[in-house]
Each structure stands twice: as structure tokens, then as C-alpha cells.
């Protein structure tokens, strides 16, 4: 077999040749299943532009993107931050941006990583399949950009900005965590009503009318208003945790275009929600795939030793994990953890130890590492993946420890380390760190005083004693007030007892 390319320069021919060879390995040997790919070559400046619009090729205009651009540009120009070699977009066809500054080996790495690794993950993972529409996203982005631009023309930049600011503030509260019940059609609704009525009629028994009790009609003290209130609450389906959805549907004062803008922000937020939930898996999958493919290319003699060394150099720097006390430490590196776990699963499948057999009886030694990995990539998200597959070996290799920080104690406590007693605790704690639902505060609309002054009540249910940060809380609540246009209040309650915490009520009239 001859070398695919020599030296570090790339051109479109070699790019195509490398892509075809990588595709053979990815689809044939690894059995990946991908969207068609579109590779776009861009400059560093365009990469900065792409950064600014949260990685998407089209985006509506907002000052916050300008702010991110300025910040990234400053970091990049002063050399404090490099640029990513690629950006990949969960769309069909899957768009991969590659930078023109990359060497040919880097381009090959990027193709293997993004065009096959991420692409396979986007296409197959359950969370993405359930929540994102890869076919429609580019069209929707174009619609969103044009719609916001038209609103700016018609209503002025400031008016649009006010809505976008408020919507952005509530972005994390703008996702559906569970699929909604499909809406019943009118016919179904009527049939249901009929069915209920006939059931009541069929079950009517005159005997019950003779039971002595309170005559509800005669009792003057029966409160009627709460009844109506409850009915109203039921109609707007409270409680509701998707605040953006709630304001879009039920805010009494928003104009149509404002609701549409809320919807756009909500759709974007929902589109990114799967990515937030699968950082470790997504990067782990892509890193594992590029490692396998590049190694295979080298084994087949399609890339030179020099190119392979260049690949290994950037691969190892991507998956390096600094220790917690190192100045370079900035959290657990999702590439490192993901790659280590994927390799570990491969090892458990093909060469299990006695420990692996005890911990993972269902996959240990099954001899089908790729099939197992593909299944894992399809069915799990970070939290469940770690909870299921973080093995004692990886915990030992990373030398993980579990710390507990009680705010009112003057010290931290080590509650588990990488030993026999600690594995499960560490695994559970690490899994919890990746659960979005636990990272974001749980805030719901619980009541609207419909017959009264339309006061909206939000409730923050606290599970771990962590209250909202007061500074950002008040400013965000002001945005809520702007969207609702009537008084709002926020209660902070203990999730277990349901009681309101001291000073736990913030009102904004």
C-alpha cells in the first residue's frame, strides 16, 4: 500500500483521498453509520466568527455574540487560547469546518474525529435522535436569522434586544426534559368527554342521593373562587418547568413576534440540550474513533511514521488530564475521561480480568468490543454512561477522589478514594456531576393568580441546600417580570419538606 500523502501540505485531492480511505475503515471495520458529510475549509478568522455564534454557521444577531467574539479574539491574539482544529454541526448533511492552517495529518485526524466520530454519535445516540432534527436545523437557523432581522427592521433593534436578553437569561429553563404528551385532537377530546359522561351516567345510582351529607348548593360557605382558580390553573397546565414555553404560550402581554422570538431561543436551547448531556460520551466516541482509524492507517502503511508521530503528539495533548493540584487543572477533561472509558470497555470485552467479570458480567469477555461500544454510544448519556461503565480500573488510573464541601464547615472532607470501598461512591458522585438536571436549579411556574392580580409564582425546589446566587437571581427575575408584565415572585423551598426557606421569597411588583 502506498502513502496517502507526504509532507504536511494539504490540497483538495489529498483531502478527498484521505476521506475515502478513512471512510472505508470507519464504515467497513468499525461499522459506523453516519450522515453524509460536507467538509468546509475556513480560515482562523472565520473560525472565530463561528465561535461567536455558538458554533453554528448561521445565527441571529445579538450583542452577546459580539461579546464572546471580542473575548475569544483577545484570548487568541494574546496567545492564551488556541483555536479548535474543527467544529462539527449536528445536521444532515453533517457540516465539519476544518481550518486551512492545519497540516495534512491534522486534517486526517479531524476527518476521522469529526466527520466520522461525532457524526456517528449525532446520528445514533438516543438523546439526539429524540430531541434534535438534524435535517431541519439549517433551514430553521436561516428562518430564525431572517425573522429576527425582520423584527429588528420593523420594531427596532432595542425592542428585539429586550426580548432576546430576557429569553437568553432563561435559556437553561427553556428546555423540555421529558417528551410532552401529544396534544389530543378536538375529536379525541370530545370523544373523551362523551366517554366520561356516559360512564358517569352508567354508574349513577339513586341510592347515593339518599346518603346524608352536606348539601353543597345550600352551603353558603363553599368557596367558589378557588374552584374557578383551579380550573384556570389546569387550563394553563401548571406546574410548568419550561419557562420559555410558558411565556410563549401564556404571557398576557407579549406580541406575536415576541412569542416567536421566545420560541426561537427555546428551540436553540433544546437543540443544544443533548450536547450538554453528552460531552464525555461525544468526545470519547470521537476520540476513540480517530485513534482507531489513525492507528489503522499507520498499520496499513497509508501514513508515514512521521505523520503518525505528529498525530500521537496532538492526540496525547488532547487527552492529557492534569492533576487537581496542577496549575493547569480546569476540571475533568471530557476527552481524557471519555477516551479512557471507551478503551476500557474495549479491554473488558476482549481481555477481562476477574474484577471486570465481577463488575460487568454482561459484557466482560463477550469478544465483540465494537458492537458493544456502538450500543453504548447509541443508548446512554453521560450520567447513565458513567454510572454504568466507570470501572475500578479507570478510577485507579485517574486516581479519583471524592470531596464533600459543606458550606458552613471550615474544611473539606475526603469521602472516598480509589479503593474497594470508594469505587461505587466515586462512580455515583461523578455521574451526578454530569447530570444537567442536577446542575441547573429546578425552577417551575407553580401558580398564577388569574382571578386576582395575575401574580406569577415561581418555585425553586432545592435538593442539595444550594440556593440561587442572589445577584444573578434578582437580575434574572427582572427579565421574568419583563416577559410576564405583571408582578412575579420567586419562592425557594426545600424539596423534601416543601417549606419555604428563610428569606426565601423574592417579590417583584
Amino acid at each position: 500500500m502506498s502513502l496517502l500523502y507526504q509532507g504536511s501540505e494539504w490540497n483538495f485531492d489529498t483531502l478527498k483521498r484521505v476521506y475515502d480511505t478513512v471512510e472505508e475503515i470507519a464504515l467497513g471495520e468499525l461499522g459506523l453509520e453516519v450522515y453524509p458529510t460536507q467538509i468546509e475549509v475556513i480560515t482562523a478568522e472565520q473560525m472565530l466568527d463561528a465561535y461567536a455564534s455558538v458554533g453554528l454557521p448561521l445565527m441571529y444577531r445579538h450583542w452577546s455574540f459580539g461579546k464572546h467574539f471580542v473575548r475569544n479574539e483577545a484570548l487568541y491574539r494574546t496567545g492564551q487560547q488556541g483555536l479548535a482544529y474543527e467544529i462539527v454541526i449536528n445536521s444532515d448533511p453533517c457540516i465539519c469546518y476544518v481550518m486551512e492552517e492545519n497540516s495534512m495529518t491534522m486534517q486526517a485526524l479531524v476527518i476521522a474525529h469529526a466527520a466520522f466520530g461525532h457524526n456517528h454519535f449525532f446520528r445514533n445516540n438516543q438523546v439526539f435522535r429524540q430531541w434534535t432534527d438534524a435535517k431541519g436545523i439549517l433551514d430553521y437557523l436561516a428562518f430564525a436569522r431572517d425573522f429576527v432581522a425582520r423584527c429588528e427592521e420593523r420594531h427596532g433593534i432595542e425592542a428585539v434586544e429586550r426580548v432576546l436578553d430576557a429569553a437568553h437569561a432563561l435559556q437553561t429553563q427553556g428546555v423540555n426534559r421529558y417528551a410532552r404528551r401529544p396534544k389530543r385532537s378536538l375529536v379525541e377530546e370530545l370523544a373523551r368527554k362523551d366517554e366520561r359522561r356516559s360512564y358517569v351516567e352508567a354508574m349513577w345510582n339513586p341510592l347515593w342521593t339518599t346518603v346524608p351529607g352536606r348539601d353543597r348548593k345550600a352551603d353558603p360557605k363553599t368557596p367558589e373562587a378557588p374552584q374557578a382558580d383551579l380550573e384556570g390553573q389546569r387550563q394553563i397546565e401548571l406546574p410548568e418547568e419550561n419557562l420559555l414555553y410558558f411565556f410563549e404560550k401564556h404571557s398576557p402581554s407579549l406580541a406575536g413576534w415576541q412569542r416567536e422570538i421566545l420560541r426561537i431561543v427555546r428551540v436553540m436551547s433544546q437543540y443544544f440540550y443533548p450536547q450538554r448531556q453528552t460531552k464525555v460520551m461525544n468526545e470519547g466516541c470521537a476520540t476513540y474513533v480517530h485513534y482507531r482509524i489513525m492507528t489503522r492507517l499507520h498499520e496499513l502503511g497509508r501514513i508515514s511514521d512521521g505523520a503518525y508521530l505528529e498525530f500521537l503528539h496532538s492526540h496525547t495533548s488532547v487527552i492529557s488530564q492534569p492533576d487537581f493540584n496542577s496549575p493547569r487543572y480546569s476540571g475533568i477533561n471530557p476527552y481524557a475521561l471519555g477516551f479512557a472509558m471507551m478503551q476500557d470497555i474495549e479491554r473488558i470485552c476482549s481481555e477481562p480480568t476477574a474484577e471486570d467479570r465481577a463488575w460487568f458480567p454482561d459484557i466482560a469477555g463477550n469478544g465483540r468490543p465494537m458492537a458493544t461500544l456502538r450500543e453504548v454510544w447509541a443508548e446512554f448519556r453521560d450520567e447513565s454512561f458513567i454510572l454504568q461503565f466507570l470501572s475500578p480500573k479507570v478510577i485507579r488510573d485517574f486516581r479519583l477522589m471524592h470531596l464533600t464541601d459543606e458550606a458552613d464547615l471550615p474544611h473539606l472532607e475526603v469521602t472516598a478514594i480509589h479503593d474497594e470501598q470508594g469505587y461505587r461512591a466515586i462512580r455515583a458522585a461523578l455521574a451526578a456531576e454530569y447530570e444537567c438536571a442536577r446542575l441547573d436549579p429546578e425552577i417551575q411556574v407553580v401558580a398564577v393568580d388569574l382571578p386576582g392580580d395575575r401574580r406569577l409564582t415561581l418555585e425553586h425546589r432545592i435538593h442539595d441546600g444550594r440556593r440561587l446566587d442572589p445577584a444573578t437571581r434578582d437580575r434574572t427575575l427582572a427579565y421574568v417580570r419583563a416577559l410576564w408584565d405583571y408582578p412575579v415572585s420567586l419562592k425557594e423551598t426545600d424539596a423534601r419538606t416543601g417549606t419555604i426557606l428563610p428569606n426565601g421569597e423574592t417579590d417583584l411588583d
Partner: protein
Amino acid sequence: MNIIDRRLNPKGKSLPNRQRLLRRLKAEVQEAVAQSIAGRRITEVDSRKPVPVPVHGIAEPSFRKGNDGRRDFVLPGNRKFVKGDIIPKPPGGEGGSAGEAADSGDGEDDFTFSLSREEFLDIFFDDMELPDMVKRRLKETNAAQPARAGYSIAGSPQALDVLRTMRNGLARRLALRRPRQSDMDDLLRRLDEAEASGEGATVSRLTEEMETLRRRLRLIPWIDPVDIRYRRFEYRPVPIAQAVMFCLMDVSGSMNEHMKDLAKRFFMLLYLFLTRRYRAVDIVFIRHTHEAQEVDEDTFFHSRETGGTVVSTALDEMNGIIARRYPPDSWNIYVAQASDGDNMASDRGRVETAMTENALPACQYFAYLEVDDPPRDSWDGRHFKSELWRTYEKLLLPGVPLALRRATSPGQIFGVLHDLFARERAD
């Protein structure tokens, strides 16, 4: 798989976002700009370097969990701790490196960003204008606006007037009696009927008629080139306001280096403002000691000459130039004068005459800046009224377009300039 080369796509996709950010930060940036101008050397004001502006408080708030309660961390690279170890929290209340790790991304947005020179000046001179610019008349033709002027038979495709073209087409088709589709259908039906009933004569007549119609249809097109009309535009000159700014600077011996620096700063900013905002403003530089002369811009800002002080010479020189080159009936005339206020007492009468009889009636606005040393402590800010100030103060009557200001430090210059030329709000 497609490979697309996007490198040639237009750059600066996030420029509109930057403009929105700037607009949002306007107040803060303005303040930062005013501060930065005070500290800069006079040559730097016009330099083309980007201007760094620190920016605070464009946070994007959201509901976030605070740092109270119980938090769990899983950290890699444990080399010495075992279960049950107690680690004192580092001072500062945070959970040390662990706390930073968990909070990354929550930091307040504090960063410096650089304004380009254009953006800097835009902000710098925002809401300033020359007051009372009312004399307008037609000057050369460099200011022209397109205006509709009927229709033409030739033009560019985007100027095609579809309505007019179709109307012409319709008229022509009616006049030349182009057969309609319904006529053709009708004839065809009658032909079929005749054929069915076997009337040979009618069939041949109708066939002939049909042939005529077909030929007509071919010869008379639906739209003919003669129908096509284009919208025609003419460029009409628009009246523009002509303005001239006289810059009068005292460079006499009584002005010390500090005062000259202040005066030059003032004129430098004024000059930047005018060249940036008004394309059609003439600027006349006059400097004076005991005698005045009109000089070019370079000499005005950079030469070092000195002598006694006779203010009226500058005013006379200016009035002479007005008479020769800028007839007040068609020019908006502005005057900015900077001086330390010293003048020969014997000159007072001539100054008053020059002002009241020539300068003030001719000009739209006369701004006088008095530059002085920074007040010493014992003076406790009291303003010693200079000769020239007292002279001008007497002229300060309602309806007289005269403004007097004082500046003692570079930091005040921008404020004074802004004050003198602030756009008057409608409200």
C-alpha cells in the same frame, strides 16, 4: 461527501454583533474614551492605533446555584489523601481549586477590548454638532440626489417598470387586434362542428380564417421591445450648507507651555470633529501675537513662535478674510478662539468694535476658551477675571451667539468642547 472552500467568503460576520455590543456599552465607552483622551499626548489623539477600553458589567445573568449548601467534587490525581481526611478550606471562602473548577464560566465579565480609531472617534464626537447651521444654498454639483424623472426606453434591468411595460403591451395588442385564446378556441369549436355536419364550404372558410388568426398571433408578439419602459432618474443638485470655522489661537509670550498645550488640544479635537463630521467645512487657522497671520494647519499646530499680545489683530484679520472670501449671506461662519485672556488694555476698544460691528453679526457661533494654569490651593478655585474675559463678558447679551468657557487641565478639554458643541436636544 462534498468539500467546500469557504475561505473566500466575506469576513467579519460578527461585525453587526460588535456594533450591537458597542451600542449597548455606549455610556461606559464614552466615559472611558473621555478619560483616555485626557491622559494621552496630543499627537496620540489623532494616531491611528486602536484604543483599549476597559468594559465592565455586560453580564448575562441567569438562574444559577450559589455556593452555599453541600457540594460534591470528584477530582483526579489524588496522591496522598485517604478516606476521612480533612482539608482546611483555603482562605477566601472558596473551595480552593475545586471551587474554581465548579464555578468556571460564572465569572463576572470584565475585559478590555479595543476600539478601532473610527469607532473611537464616532463615539467621541457622538451628539456634537455645529449649531445654527441654517444658511443653505446650491453650491457645486458634488451633492446630488437621484430623483424620478419619467420613463425612458433604455435603462438597466432593475429599473424596468413592469406596470408601464405591460400597459403598453396591452394597448399595442388591442390596437393591432392580436387574437385572443378564446377567439381561437371558439373558431376551433365551430370548425369541428362544421366538419361533423359535413358543410364543406364552411369548413374551408373557417380553415382559412384560422390560418389568418394563426399568422396574426405569430406576427404580433405578446410583449414587444417597443413596449418596454424603464424608470428614469435624474441627478438633481441639493442645496448644502457651507460652513467655515475660524480657529484663533493666541501664541504670545504670556501663554506658557501648559496653556499652549491646552489650546492645541482644544483645536486638535475641534479639527478632528470638523473633518470627521462635516465634509464641506472650510477651516481657517489664524494665530496671533501682537500681529496676526493666517497659517496652514501644520504651522498652526507645530510651529513655536512668540511675541506680545494684541487680540484685535486676529479679529481684524478674520474680518478681512470674511469680507474677501466668505460672504456672510451664504456662509455659516463659526469662530473658536483660545487665549490666556491677556490683552493690552489699550486694545480693549478695538476688540469691542471688531466684535460688535463685524465678527458677532457675521457669525453663527463664537466660542471662546480661556486656558489657564491649574488653580493653586490658596486660590481655592476663585476665578480671576482676565482682561479679555471681562471684555467679552460685557458682550454676553441674550441672542448674542457667544459662549465663554475656561479650562485648566487636559482632562477638562473634552468636556468643554463637548459643552460648547453639544447637540441641543428637542426635549
